[in-house]
């Protein structure tokens, strides 16, 4: 038995009878659940994670933890819509899905998908709690979530421990497929490094070299890595940092930060804040005259930012994963836009797009693997096969499980140029992904084991 902090030992603290009862129960229960280690079964493929239990029936469960309250609630709800549309399309064998995953008939390997949703409130703890439940109770075969990179990193680790695949939701931090990468985690969307690398040439062309930059950074992994990537990528063109105002997630008032920025003498304001923080900081930047003094850049675009800031994004450069006017170039995007708009009544932003395509890619990988056995599915991802997506062909890099895909540079349209209610941005450039990626080991990624 365990050590106790008593002074007279076990027997005087606890009556002998209850001790025996407790002890018997302990040993009995342990044997019941196999706590005592036994010699390994000589089977070919021992059970791993939720396999094979999770895929025995005629449906499989997917656990999703998105923020439905808090600073990222708006983006979380939108992301959820993407997941739900993907699940519906995969289950019915929609044409769009078949374009990306040709082996899909109905569902995944003939099994219908069930989606379980929990509110993470952008807190790692809440997400881990919910996903643990999804895994142990519902035998989820795949988990997803993010929006906050802190959540993504936590779920990375959980997935690796529980041996359940984690298909990352929105996550912009370099660390997610960098130093915090795991064998069981995969990410589709663009991130700090690719965003910075893609947007820098556009910015330099528009604004020139040797500019003084003020940064506004949210205080967690996403903020710090994106700011750093921007600093590193613009340094060669002589851009210098005059101040970096780091604010907590969900800050109610940015006045002190903005005053520091206003008095810093910067030419450019790079706002890395996301979600509601971005909306508020930009609105207040306008109030403090900062936007009149310097140019705003949003290196990691926020869904609905243009709508919520009411016109403040005019002339602002941003890097994003997707913008709906891409449909002119990509027929799959057109199909996606149509389906999404029909279902939800507005044009999709990149959060929903990322959610949708991540799921469809996963469905494809499982179909290709022919089973839900996680190491097999992982190996299919790692084949680096070129596969279609909503913005052309992409592939997943085997060293860090990051999808190599183009980054879209957009610029906010002037009010007078907007052709419709949702026509907020011009697409300035579609930058191919390969040249934007860092070297595979540059961010310290060490994938873990398969089993």
């Amino acid at each position, binding site marked *: 038995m365990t050590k106790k902090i008593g002074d007279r030992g076990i027997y005087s603290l606890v009556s002998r009878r209850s001790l025996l009862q407790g002890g018997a129960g302990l040993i009995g229960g342990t044997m019941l659940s196999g706590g005592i280690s036994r010699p390994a079964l000589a089977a070919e493929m021992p059970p791993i994670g939720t396999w094979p239990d999770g895929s025995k029936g005629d449906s499989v469960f997917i656990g999703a933890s998105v923020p439905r309250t*808090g600073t990222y609630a708006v983006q979380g709800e939108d992301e959820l819509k993407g997941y739900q549309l993907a699940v519906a399309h995969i289950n019915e064998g929609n044409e769009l899905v078949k374009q990306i995953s040709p082996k899909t008939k109905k569902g995944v390997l003939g099994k219908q998908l069930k989606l379980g949703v929990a509110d993470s409130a952008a807190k790692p703890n809440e997400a881990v709690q919910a996903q643990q439940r999804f895994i142990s109770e519902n035998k989820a075969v795949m988990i997803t979530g993010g929006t906050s990179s802190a959540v993504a990193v936590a779920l990375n680790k959980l997935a690796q421990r529980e041996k359940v695949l984690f298909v990352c939701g929105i996550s912009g931090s370099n660390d997610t497929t960098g130093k915090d990468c795991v064998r069981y985690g995969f990410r589709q969307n663009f991130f700090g490094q690719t965003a910075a690398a893609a947007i820098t040439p556009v910015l330099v062309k528009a604004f020139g070299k040797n500019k003084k930059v003020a940064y506004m950074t949210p205080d967690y992994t996403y903020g710090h*890595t994106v700011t750093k990537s921007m600093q590193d990528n613009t340094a060669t*063109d002589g851009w210098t940092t005059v101040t970096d105002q780091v604010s907590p997630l969900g800050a109610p008032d940015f*006045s*002190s*930060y903005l*005053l520091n920025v206003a008095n810093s003498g910067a030419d450019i304001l790079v706002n890395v804040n996301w979600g509601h923080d971005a*909306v*508020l900081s930009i609105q207040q930047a306008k109030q403090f005259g900062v936007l009149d003094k310097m140019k705003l850049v949003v290196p990691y675009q926020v869904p609905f930012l243009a709508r919520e800031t009411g016109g403040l994004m005019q002339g602002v450069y941003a890097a994003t994963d997707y913008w709906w006017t891409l449909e002119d170039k990509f027929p799959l995007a057109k199909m996606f836009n149509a389906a999404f708009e029909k279902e939800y009544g507005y044009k999709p932003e990149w959060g929903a797009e990322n959610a949708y395509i991540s799921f469809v890619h996963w469905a494809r990988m499982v179909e290709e693997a022919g089973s839900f056995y996680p190491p097999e599915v992982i190996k299919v991802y790692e084949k680096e096969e070129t596969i279609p997506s909503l913005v052309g062909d992409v592939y997943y890099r085997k060293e860090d499980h990051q999808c190599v895909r183009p980054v879209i540079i957009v610029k906010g349209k002037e009010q007078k140029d907007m052709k419709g209610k949702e026509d907020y941005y011009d697409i300035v450039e579609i930058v191919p992904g390969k040249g934007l990626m860092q070297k595979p080991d*540059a961010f310290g990624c060490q994938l873990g084991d398969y089993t």
Partner: protein
Amino acid sequence: MRSAASSATIPEIDATQAPRADHCRQRRFAYFHINVIAKGRRFGRHIVMVNWANFVSQVFNGLALGALLALISSGLTIIYGTLGVLNLAHGAMFMLGGYAGYVAYTYTGSFIVAVAAGSLFVALVGILMERIIIRHFYDRPHEDQLLVTFGLGIVFVELARLVFGSQSQIVPAPPLFAGITSLGFMFYPTYRLAVVGIIAVALTVLFVVLYRTRIGMIVRAGIEDSVMVDALGINVYRVFMIVFGIGAMAAGFAGIVNAPVVSLTPGIGDDILVQTFVVVVIGGVGSFPGAVLGGLIAGEIISITSMFNPGYAYVMLFAAMTVVLVVRPYGLLGTKGRE
């Protein structure tokens, strides 16, 4: 993608971080890199944004923030002083005032109506809360009162979230105060200037009510000794109800007046609540002048600290509170016996 840089044009960069794979350093706040042109002092690895313009801006901003805290804290302190009830729903009332005003604004388009609606609605909420719930808690241990107001605070926030959603709502500033004022060395949103004025007026009105009217005198007597007031034949419960209403109204008024400054979300009351408590403790529980003084001090502490390192701003507030409590156990202007 990266061309060779022409070295001649790269200006002197102080304490630049060599890019490393280790991102731990990134999480530290204190790296402000200043170009040689900007005035600044080097502080080891920190380079601090101390220049005259910034200092004055921050002091000014602190005043605005402090005024807001002063108003909200006055409400809290008179409730606590009179009823002995620590109203943990006070932050939620601040939030409700904002939303009530927002609703009024969408229907009428008038900011003044919004302010009136916000204040009166929350005053009503306060009165109802006292009448229906708090009144039954006077003979129960203090902790129970705390718990029930804590629970009510959560209920109010979640109700607002249910009705309005998590998305932020905007109440635009009245056209009279919209725009930016140039104060010579800096630009400042006109409306924030106006807020300082509005709150100053509100505090004056509160002062007049408390110190120059009969009802105010009874309230102040109640703060000193509610048992005695009762013994003198004054309906103490009615006094309590009025006090709760006034205190709540102060928070609601602050909520709607502050709405154009920060956008409305259900959670804005939570941060304010903790800061309000700190202010009340610094100023001295039950003391109206203490709340005002404490609010201004707190506002300045937050602003000036953010000049050096914004991350430490709120921690400094707590440190200041602890120092005050060690040196003056009952706050700056508080009196013994009020706990």
